[in-house]
């Protein structure tokens, strides 16, 4: 056994430090009794209190934006789960010219920068004289979420045993029964994983929302942006920490659930 170089390990640890340091500093700042990022002025919980009591205009705007974000994310997730799963099934089941075209359509949004998608959707809405609002944001988010859901479900379908469907059919199951009793239970985890990805991408999106949101339909990232640009960024730190706690617990929880599933059904 030769001695391995330690360098890759140090690079990895350095990357982890680089990735976490800003987030840790942000958490510390949220307890800092100072209006501006800077010297430590003492420990305080007043930013959290301001945020949770929602007495100020800023805090109320944040909660409205949070509600908008969740509404958009749920709507976009549900639509893209249905369309994305159908797309994945079509691409898996059929091999034809139509499906190669389908595949190109599904992959293309993945390699297009957000800003191009944002501006082209804005031009479409302007051309159709549609008022910008929550609906246009949902439509835009669905457009990029479909591809991600389709990709995740297609990945699961690669190890799908199609003889199960044939067996069910031989035993007299009709199309509907096959769908409900075979496909959905087996593809469930894949569809859920795709939906989770779509949900987080929707919550996280800033650029496309920025282009397709109208007045009054601000989502949380757009709200954070305008607070950074125009207002005082004091509440952002506390908001970020709440955000971080929520996302980290969702990720760790879903990781646990998925791992348990994998352990009980090692062959699926």
């Amino acid at each position: 056994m030769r001695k391995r170089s330690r360098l890759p390990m140090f690079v990895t640890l350095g990357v982890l430090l680089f990735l976490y340091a800003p987030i840790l500093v942000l958490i510390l700042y949220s307890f800092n009794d100072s209006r501006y990022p800077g010297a430590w002025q003492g420990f305080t919980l007043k930013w959290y209190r301001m945020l949770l009591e929602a007495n100020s205009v800023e805090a109320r705007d944040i909660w409205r934006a949070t509600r908008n974000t969740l509404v958009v994310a749920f709507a976009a997730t549900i639509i893209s789960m249905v369309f994305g799963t159908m797309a994945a099934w079509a691409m898996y089941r059929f091999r034809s010219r139509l499906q190669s075209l389908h595949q190109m359509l599904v992959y293309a949004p993945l390699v297009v920068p957000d800003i191009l998608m944002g501006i082209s959707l804005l031009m479409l809405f302007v051309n159709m004289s549609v008022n910008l609002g929550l609906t246009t944001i949902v439509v835009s988010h669905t457009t990029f979420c479909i591809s991600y859901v389709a990709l995740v479900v297609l990945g699961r379908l690669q190890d799908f045993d199609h003889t199960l469907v044939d067996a069910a059919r031989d035993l007299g199951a009709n199309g509907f029964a096959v769908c409900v009793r075979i496909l959905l239970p087996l593809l469930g985890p894949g569809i859920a994983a795709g939906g989770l990805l779509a949900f987080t991408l929707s919550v996280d999106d800033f650029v496309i929302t920025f282009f397709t949101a109208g007045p009054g339909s601000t989502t949380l990232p757009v709200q954070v942006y305008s607070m950074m640009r125009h207002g005082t960024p004091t509440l952002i730190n506390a908001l970020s920490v709440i955000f971080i706690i929520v996302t980290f617990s969702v990720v760790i929880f879903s990781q646990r659930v998925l791992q348990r599933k994998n352990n009980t059904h090692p062959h699926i």
Partner: protein
Amino acid sequence: MKRSWREWAISLPSMGWLVFFFVIPTILVCGIAFKPRSINGGIGDGWTLGTWLDVLQPSYPLVVWRTLWLSGMTTLICLLVSVPVAYWLARLSREARNWMLLLIILPFWTNFLIRVFAWWSLLHSQGWLKQALAWVGLVSPDAQLLYNEWAVLLVLVYTYIPFAILPLFASAEKFDFSLLDAARDLGAGKLRAFVSVFLPGISQGMITAFVVVFIPALGSYAIPDIVGGPQSEMIGNKIAQKVFVDRNLPHASALATLLALVVLLPVLYSIFTQRRQKRGNGGRRS
């Protein structure tokens, strides 16, 4: 006949959606680039090449060049750092590897703007990183770390590193590490074995990492907007400026078309190399 009816029925919803909300808008943008601007900030009637003459003004080549330079440097740094990380991760035990992957992805699940904001507060003239560097004496106390190209580059690298690590790791995981031992037995040095055996072994991952870092970096808007200043604008900033500040939609469309052309080149390149590689592998196997 029945089969093809079923195929259409299941393909149509997603295809229809993507055609209507992705393909048509893209064509629309290219079309609007040839339209004049109406007085009220909308799109006028008739056709014109005037917008393109404005776009080819002397100030834009610099912005295009800066966009290419910043995205290229981001990709290079991300790849240089991520290759050793992928190498190390791939040699870990399965359980340790899953935990490390989770650790790497986790920050990436916090909101993108919040991460940019975190860097903004660190680099800010009162920020801790700035203060620490000034205290050590690496920068002068009144130096400005924000609002320049280096700040943009730093935050771009921060944002895209996980995108580079994941595909490289996926390739490294499939790499047969006994090949490295074989190379060493045959007399290659550590570095030589790494460069001429490991790197070609993960070339597929490198191409994917290149595409998933370089292309989104080209379209950056929020990062140069927040930590960069007017001196470090990228094409994305110009597009947003034409839409929101100048209300000149044809001009914004022409810039978007330009960006789309810049993006298309690496995509075509990667498709081309992948085809060639597939053909190459097929030949070797037979």
